[in-house]
């Protein structure tokens, strides 16, 4: 009897389209594009700030308008997606064992949301929004 195992081909580029769970994974991963772009925006802001008041003022004017609003909205949406997906998996990576039991994930996740809310409020306060 002869053996001739058959290897089924897998698409290197399109595999993630084949199942909703893979698409959810990719949506989580591409948040990095927006976080990275946002970080580069922060670097630019810093450069303009260092240049002087006129350079900074024209920069602030330049990042106003509908295109910028769309861009920042996308950053916000993907930043939120990163936050929620990150908090949800933290209990798996850092389990907390107390005696014979493990601390239920919901407490760890809940604590993260609480810190996130407090941190956000603190930033908004110092930014002069609230």
């Amino acid at each position, binding site marked *: 009897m002869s053996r001739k195992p058959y290897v089924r081909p897998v698409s290197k580029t399109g595999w993630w389209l084949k199942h909703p769970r893979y698409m959810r994974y990719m949506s989580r991963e591409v948040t990095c594009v927006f976080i990275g772009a946002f970080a580069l925006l922060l670097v630019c802001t810093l450069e303009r700030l260092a240049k002087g008041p006129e350079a900074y003022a024209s920069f602030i004017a330049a*990042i106003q308008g509908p295109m910028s609003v769309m861009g920042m909205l996308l950053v916000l949406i993907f930043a939120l997606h990163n*936050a929620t997906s990150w908090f949800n998996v933290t209990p798996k990576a850092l389990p907390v064992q107390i005696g014979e039991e493990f601390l239920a994930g919901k407490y760890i996740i809940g604590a993260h949301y609480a810190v996130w809310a407090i941190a956000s409020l603190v930033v908004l306060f110092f930014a002069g929004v609230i």
Partner: protein
Amino acid sequence: MAKSNKPIFWSLFAAGGTLAAFLAPVLALLFLMVAMGHAPAVFSYANLHAFAANWLGKIIILGVITLFLWHAAHRLRVTLHDFGLRQDAIVAIVVYLTAAAGTVLTVVYLLRI
């Protein structure tokens, strides 16, 4: 097979991801307000300059930008791999060099303020 050197990049990714999870949404909201023409008080030249001139402000700005950059760099390396771009070594060099450049520039600009 030799043990990997990915841990250094992964720890930056993990630290950056955690910081981004907590801070990126509110920071994005602030910039969204600027884009909409309602820049919060902190964005006045005087206020932002004062914040960046302060040594604590410098540390915070450097920490946030650096960790965001290295988080995004490592995750982008893995994501491009997932999208079928398999020349991992080249991708790694490009993304990490970009993050490094961003880090260096941040230090340079902060020192000017």
